[in-house]
C-alpha cells in the first residue's frame, strides 16, 4: 500500500455495484404492496385487540355481577318473593335470620358491601358483637340531626348478651357515620320476655317497627312514643307426644310438597357461646359438599341457612341451635320450631328429623 489515495481508489471501485432493473421493479412492487396492505393489517390488528379487550371487559363485568354467588353467599330462590316485600317500604333489611324471611336479605350489592365493612370495622368492639349476635339487623334509611350531620341508621334486635337476664330481648338503634362508627346508640327493652325478636318491617317513616318473636308473638314498637303492642298467640305447633319427624312428615303431607320446609341453623361454640370461624367454615363446606346444587346460604359468622333439603352434618363438637320452618305457598311462615340439638349425638340430621331423636324445644322464656 503506497498511500491513502490507493485505498480510496479501490473503495471507489465498489460504487459501481448496482441492482438489476428486474430486481428494482420487483422490489418496488413489493414495497407498494406492503404499503397498501399495511393499513388493513393494522386495522385487523386493532380489531382483534379491540375484540379481545371487549371480551375481557364483559367477563369482568359478569364476574363482578355474580361475585356474591362465586364467593358463596347464594340466595335461595324460594325466598326472593319475600325479600322484595321489604324493599317497597324504603327500608333495607340487612340480616334477618330467625323469622320467615330467613336470611340475609341484603337487597343490593352496596348494602352487602356496607354491612361487611361495618362488621369488619366494629367486629372487635361492642357494636360488632351486637351485630354479630343479633337476630336481625335492618338498615333503616338515614338519620340527620339539627346540626346537619347525617349517616346510615341501623336497627337491630338481639337478646341481652351482658349481665342480667340473658333471655331479655331488646331493640337497639344505631346512628352511624359514614365510616361505620357509632355516633349514637339507643336501646329499647320490651316489658315481656318473648324470646328472640325478628324485625319484619319498619314503617311510618322509620318510627314503628314490626316484629315476630320466637314464642310466636307478633307486635310493634313505636320509637317516638316508646309503646309496645303485642298480639297473636303461640303459632308453634305443639310437639306433644309426637316426634319432630312426625311433625315434619305431617307438614309435608298437609302441604303436599316438601319444598316449603327450611332449616335454619345457628351454630355457636359450646365453650363460650361465641362463634368459631373455623368451625363455621368447616360446617359450611360440609354442607356444600353433601348438597352440591342445593341452595345454601351462609350468612354472618353464626348463621347457616339451608334451603330445600335435609342434610347430614358431621360436626364433632358444639351445639347447633336449629329452627325448622315450614312455609305456606305464598311464602308466609306456617310454623317454625326451634330445637336445641347436639349434633355430635346423631349420625345424620335426616335420621333425627324423620325417625327418632331426643330433640328439645329451645327455651324461650316463660309462657305468656
Amino acid at each position, binding site marked *: *500500500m503506497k498511500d*491513502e489515495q490507493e*485505498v*480510496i481508489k*479501490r*473503495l*471507489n*471501485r*465498489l*460504487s459501481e*455495484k*448496482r*441492482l438489476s432493473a428486474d*430486481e*428494482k421493479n420487483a*422490489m*418496488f412492487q*413489493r*414495497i407498494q404492496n*406492503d*404499503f397498501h396492505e*399495511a393499513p388493513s393489517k393494522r386495522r385487523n390488528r386493532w380489531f382483534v385487540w379491540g375484540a379481545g379487550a371487549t371480551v375481557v371487559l364483559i367477563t369482568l363485568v359478569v364476574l363482578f355481577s355474580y361475585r356474591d354467588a362465586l364467593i358463596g353467599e347464594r340466595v335461595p330462590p324460594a325466598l326472593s318473593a319475600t325479600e322484595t316485600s321489604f324493599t317497597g317500604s324504603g327500608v333495607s333489611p340487612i340480616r334477618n335470620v330467625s323469622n320467615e324471611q330467613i336470611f340475609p336479605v341484603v337487597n343490593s350489592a352496596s348494602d352487602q358491601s356496607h354491612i361487611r365493612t361495618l362488621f369488619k370495622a366494629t367486629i372487635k368492639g361492642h357494636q360488632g358483637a351486637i351485630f354479630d349476635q343479633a337476630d336481625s339487623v335492618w338498615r333503616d334509611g338515614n338519620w340527620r340531626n339539627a346540626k346537619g350531620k347525617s349517616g346510615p341508621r341501623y336497627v337491630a334486635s338481639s337478646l341481652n348478651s351482658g349481665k342480667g337476664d340473658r333471655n331479655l330481648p331488646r331493640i337497639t338503634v344505631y346512628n352511624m357515620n359514614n365510616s361505620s362508627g357509632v355516633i349514637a346508640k339507643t336501646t329499647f327493652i320490651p316489658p315481656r320476655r318473648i324470646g328472640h325478636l325478628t324485625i319484619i318491617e319498619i314503617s311510618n317513616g322509620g318510627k314503628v317497627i314490626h316484629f315476630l318473636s320466637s314464642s310466636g308473638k307478633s307486635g310493634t314498637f313505636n320509637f317516638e312514643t316508646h309503646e309496645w303492642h303485642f298480639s297473636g298467640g303461640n303459632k308453634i305447633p305443639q310437639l306433644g307426644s309426637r316426634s319432630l319427624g312426625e311433625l315434619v312428615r305431617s307438614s309435608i303431607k298437609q302441604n303436599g310438597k316438601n319444598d316449603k320446609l327450611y332449616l335454619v341453623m345457628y351454630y355457636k361454640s359450646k365453650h363460650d357461646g361465641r362463634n368459631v370461624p373455623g368451625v363455621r367454615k368447616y360446617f359450611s363446606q360440609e354442607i356444600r359438599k353433601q348438597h352440591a346444587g342445593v341452595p345454601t346460604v351462609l350468612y354472618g359468622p353464626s348463621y347457616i341457612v339451608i334451603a330445600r333439603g335435609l342434610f347430614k352434618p358431621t360436626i364433632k363438637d358444639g351445639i347447633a341451635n336449629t329452627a325448622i320452618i315450614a312455609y305456606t305457598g305464598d311464602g308466609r311462615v306456617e310454623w317454625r320450631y326451634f330445637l336445641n340439638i347436639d349434633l355430635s349425638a346423631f349420625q345424620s340430621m335426616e335420621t333425627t328429623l324423620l325417625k327418632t331423636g331426643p330433640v328439645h324445644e329451645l327455651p324461650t322464656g316463660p309462657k305468656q
Partner: protein
Amino acid sequence: MGGFATHEKPLQSDEAVKDLFYHYADDLYRFALYSVGNHDDAKDIVQDVFLKAYRSFGNFRQEAQCKTWLFQIAKNQIRDHFRRSRVRKTAFRKENKVPNRFTEFDSDIEIQDALSRLKENFRQVLILRFIEDLSVRDTADILHWSEAKVRTTQHRALKQLRTIFEDGHPSGKRKGMNHHEG
C-alpha cells in the same frame, strides 16, 4: 448530490417515492450491502427503507435533502438488522481464505472482505465518503456526527484499512471477529 436534493413543490407520495426509489435504490443498496455484507439482507433493508419513506412521507421536511433522509433511515435499519440478527460477520467473508498481502486485494469481494473487518463506524464513514461519494457535511448529517468527527474517523478508518490491505488483518493482528458498535 442527486437531483432530489431540493423539491420546489410538495411531493405526492406515490410518484415521489417511486422517483426516489429508482433514483436512490442503488446507492442505498450499496450502503446496505457493504454494511451488512449480504445481498438478500441488503435488499430487505432497501425495501424497508422505502416502505418507511412511504409511510412517513408526510412528515418529511422538504428542507431536508432526500438522499440524506433516506440514508438516515437506512442507517437505522442497518443498526436494527444487527440488533435483530446479532450477526457481526458477514456472509461473504471467507474465513478460510484471508489474503495476507495487499496485492491480493484485487477483487471487489476481497475489498468488501477488508471493509467488513473494520468497526462499523469506520466502515460506514468509508462507505458514505468514498463509495457513495457524499460530502463530509452530508456524512455528518447521516451519522449524526460533527464534521470533525467524520474527518477524524475517516482518517483512522483509511489507516486501518490500509493496514488490512498490507497485513491481512486490522492493527497487524489477525482477528476472527469485528466488533459491532450499534
